């Protein structure tokens, strides 16, 4: 393995040399962010190759307005909130689901399937599934919705914040951060969407998009492939994730998603409103749509004071540049969403970050 790493290192060095400037590569996915930190990948890269963490952690990019709707629903006696674990600690208006947990009905689930089961087990409650995530999780939500139809589970409601990766990449490049030279794209999303989904980024913006898995070697070889393209003045979509990623992706998963959902304009933390970037339930499934059932409109929310999650998610700053980082904002007491999720850039920097007072943090 070390041979291949050294080879990749040489390619990266040569690219930095020939371009004669800093190369900025964004890893779009939170799973990549964590893998990069855990494997100490930054320590083996050339100094002039900078990795930026992108808007790829579902909890992080979920707009504050959505969080506030969840918290509002948690207050209702007739609702039971079913949510993935990471979500319950995101702070919003008047607390978080965790702080409300003692009073309200909040259950942590591992899958949409579990949420549907909760609905069946609690017929007297409206079970609201907090559906966040990218293309990887959406098909499972769609399956749960179709099962709810088949089994007549009318008290199963979906509060959807499912998001699409490519519109966010477009928004970043066109409005927020022009300094991104290329994208390292997530393998598991590409298994569903197909690597062809990234072609528009290459065509419209001329930025290389390389799909890689989450093993350290793949990440490094992915970065080297990007460097090779940049130094040759090329921009291509390439997958080094192996045969599991095809150009077209998992058509069955795309079909079930398309059966239930359609793209709509949506709000993102840090990126604001992005056209056709969020998935909402189609009209024929509107009875499962929590917003419609409760007649709520989601409005963009406000970030906590001083929190710079927005800039972190756009790759404009590294978390330590936020003045709250490690001071008033820690995984114990997160101020913003990027410190809550284990895949969030702030949490990853906190957990694995640079040389600091190691051993002096108070252990719980």
């Amino acid at each position, binding site marked *: *393995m*070390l041979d291949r*790493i050294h080879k990749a290192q040489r390619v990266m060095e040569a690219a930095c040399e020939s371009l004669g400037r800093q190369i900025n590569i964004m890893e779009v996915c939170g799973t990549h962010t*964590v893998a990069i*930190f*855990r*494997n*100490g*990948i*930054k*320590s*083996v890269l050339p100094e002039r190759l900078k990795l930026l963490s992108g808007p790829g952690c579902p909890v992080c990019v979920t707009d504050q307005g959505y969080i506030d709707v969840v918290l509002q629903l948690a207050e209702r006696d007739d609702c039971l909130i079913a949510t993935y674990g990471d979500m319950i600690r995101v702070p919003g208006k008047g607390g978080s689901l965790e702080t409300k947990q003692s009073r309200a009905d909040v259950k942590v689930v*591992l899958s949409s399937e579990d949420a549907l089961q909760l609905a069946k087990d609690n017929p007297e409650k409206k079970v609201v599934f907090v559906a966040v995530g990218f293309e990887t999780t959406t098909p499972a939500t769609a399956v749960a919705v179709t099962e709810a139809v088949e089994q007549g589970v009318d008290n199963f409601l979906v509060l959807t914040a499912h998001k699409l990766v490519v519109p966010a990449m477009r928004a970043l490049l066109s409005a927020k951060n022009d300094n991104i030279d290329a994208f390292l794209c997530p393998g598991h999303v590409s298994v569903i969407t197909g690597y062809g989904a990234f072609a528009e980024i290459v065509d419209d913006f001329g930025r290389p998009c390389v799909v890689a898995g989450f093993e*350290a*070697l793949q990440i*490094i070889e992915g970065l080297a492939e990007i460097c090779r393209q940049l130094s040759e003045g090329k921009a291509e979509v390439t997958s080094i994730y192996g045969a599991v990623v095809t150009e077209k992706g998992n058509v069955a998963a795309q079909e079930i998603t398309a059966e239930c959902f359609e793209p709509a304009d949506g709000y993102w933390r840090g990126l604001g409103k992005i056209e056709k970037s969020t998935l909402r339930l189609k009209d024929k499934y509107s009875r499962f749509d929590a917003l419609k059932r409760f007649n709520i409109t989601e409005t963009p929310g406000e970030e906590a004071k001083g929190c710079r999650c927005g800039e972190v998610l756009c790759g404009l700053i590294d978390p330590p540049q936020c003045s709250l980082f490690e001071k008033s904002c*820690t*995984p*114990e007491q997160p101020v913003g969403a990027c410190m809550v999720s*284990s*895949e969030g850039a702030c949490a990853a920097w*906190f*957990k*694995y*970050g*640079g*040389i*600091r*007072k*190691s*051993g*002096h*943090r*108070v*252990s*719980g």
Partner: protein
Amino acid sequence: METNRHDRILLAHGGGGKLTDDLIRHHILPKLKNDTLAELGDSAKLNLTSEKICFTTDSYVVKPLFFNGGDIGKLAVCGTINDLAVAGSRPVALALSLIIEEGLEFELLEKILTSISRAAAKNNVNIVTGDTKTVEAGAAEKIFINTAGVGVRLPGVDLGCERIAPGDKIIINGTIGDHGMAIISQREGIKFESQLQSDCAGIGELTCKLLECSRGIRFMRDPTRGGLAATLNEISRDSGLSIEICEGEIPINPTVQTAADMLGFDVLAIANEGKFVAIVSPESADDCLEICRNHPLGADAGVIGQVVETRDVPTVELMTRIGGRRIVQMPYGRELPRIC
């Protein structure tokens, strides 16, 4: 027998009257029988071979009470034994306090007591004194256990962080993260939970053997809550020295790694209950390793890293498989409540 009329613990079982007496004489004593305990005095009288002793206590609130590879009873015995062992002593006697929630089934209590008795026998310690309290339903969760323990310090053995020097080697006696992942995956109901087994065990016999055979051991600690990451950070902080460990050398059961990845945990920060970290002089590392590997609780032992001079602040660094480096932070501790 009076208590036969009940199949659950009543609040009155802790009232100090006849029911308490029944509970102790008919349920607890028969399981934990030994001469000192049988006296039921206000204090146990111990005849120790030395005045130099180690003394420790710990409380156990693990959830669930029964898990793959152990239960709260075995944990309460082994955990305290291990604290004594890594301090350089031979564990000899334990005190056992049970805080029982009203309504606990006798059957469960018996199972836990059987397990306590087995663990004590296996590790050659006696339960010499104890106490039982009951609390109303809701005031505890089924049962909490406190154990305190006494160990006789091994002659000529003096362990301490101040003895650690750059160049010293770091040994662990086996795979890490097994206990924590067994518990958490059972709680989360993960599919392959049955393949995950806690490493819960008393390490006193092995540590005594090591200390008797080698004079090169500087310091030992059991990496329980906060796992290897917490223990190494404590050692680094207290010695003022830095530590480098090699990812490729750290023994990890692949299923534990998969489960941890799935749930987003760092195995380095996951609790162990049958492990010790030993900092040993470079000359003695090979001998120590061999002693470990010849013991059932050390079959997977390995030298995982070394102590180095501190450049800036004392730091624990991991050399990753790809030749990278990263800091191993002190875990912040909210990840796994009630792990022991």
